[in-house]
């Protein structure tokens, strides 16, 4: 929920760029609050997406929320170097997302975001090995995999979602009340194996 101080000014407008960047990089339990603050900070971009790009409100919202998710990830990873202001940086992402939305509209393309994220992860792997893995990933039945993910026990699913959201095993242990981060790691690997077996059946 949007919070405001006693003067009625939303918290998201009170904190500096550096403070919000710092909070997003620290992750931890306060990460959610920082994400909300970032979302609220430039929420007026949605109106701009509608006025300047001719998007519907739903499309402009999608573009903006994808922008914020992308920015959160890049800030957490340290990719944002602070050469421009946070507003300029986010607006640039937003502009591209609006263009993606327009393209999506004209080509009926379903997902632009997935390719981007997969590429991020694959960048860890050397070129020759990467193409092998990429070919195999391209064969994934994403709908089935999503269905199987939702068939997992709730705590297992929760654990995998937090892992994918860049929470460390230590942070997951604190949030989901596991005894140690080692227990989280063991459980997480078991959940991944469980998901793989469900997917293969």
């Amino acid at each position: 929920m949007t919070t405001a101080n006693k003067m009625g000014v939303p918290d998201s407008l009170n904190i500096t760029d550096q403070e919000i960047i710092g909070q997003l990089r620290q992750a931890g339990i306060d990460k959610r609050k920082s994400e909300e603050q970032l979302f609220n900070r430039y929420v007026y971009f949605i109106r701009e997406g509608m006025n300047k790009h001719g998007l519907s409100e739903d499309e402009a919202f999608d573009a903006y929320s994808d922008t914020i998710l992308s920015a959160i990830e890049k800030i957490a990873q340290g990719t944002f170097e602070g050469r421009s202001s946070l507003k300029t940086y986010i607006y640039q992402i937003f502009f591209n997302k609006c263009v993606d939305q327009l393209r999506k509209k004209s080509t009926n393309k379903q997902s632009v975001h997935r390719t981007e994220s997969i590429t991020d992860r694959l960048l860890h792997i050397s070129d020759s090995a990467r193409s092998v893995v990429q070919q195999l990933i391209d064969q994934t039945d994403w709908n089935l995999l999503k269905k199987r993910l939702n068939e997992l026990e709730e705590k297992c699913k929760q654990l995998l979602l937090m892992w994918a959201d860049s929470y460390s095993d230590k942070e997951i242990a604190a949030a989901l009340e596991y005894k140690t981060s080692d227990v989280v790691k063991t459980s997480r690997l078991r959940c991944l194996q469980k998901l793989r077996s469900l997917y293969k059946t």
Partner: protein
Amino acid sequence: MEPTAYIDSYFNGELAADEKQQFENKIIEDPSFAEEVANYLSAFQIAKEQSEEIKKQHFLEIYKQSKTHKTSGMMRKLWPSIAIAAMLAGIILGIYLFIQPVSAQQLADGYIRDHFQNLGVNMGKRDSMEAAKEEYNADKPIAALKSFERIILSDSSNFEAKEYAGIVCLRLQQYDRAMLYFKQLEADTTAYINPSLFYQALTLMKRNHSGDVREAKQLLQKVVKNDLEGKEIAEEWLKKL
């Protein structure tokens, strides 16, 4: 090391440079291992997408709430203007009502409300006339009318009973009957104060049938001209009608 744990170590950056190289070689050389890596990354991806879907849903709720707050905030900002507009509208309406001609029926209603709520009783006297007035004052107009009419029946020259009977009929909205009694009052030459014409005008104004107001005005003009009972009010009403 179990394959999933091995893959996890690689992506967590826990392997040394030579171990990383071995890992990547294994992807190329071992198709089942390559598939394990692909599964690991696909699982990560789908979990990430699901997590982002939840976040987007949460953002949507925040957005909807902020829109609601914005609307209510706008209402708060506009409140002084709305209050001023409402006051102006009230003033204009008041002026409109004030300057708008009052209808004959409204004038009659006001008079009946102010003057015929109760009939004056003579405290020291106990007779059928006083009893009938008390019935009227006790909000029993039908019983009171019967009592007054019994008196009239027994004494057709009792103009006081006829006046009261007419008033009761007026209150009971029996206008024709009221007119009949008030007209009979005209014949009373003994009374120093005779409100007959004024009451007839009042009844016509209240009845408000076609031509009633015109006739009422003529009666009121007579009241004024002949300086009869109700002259002051008649003058006032004539200005308004």
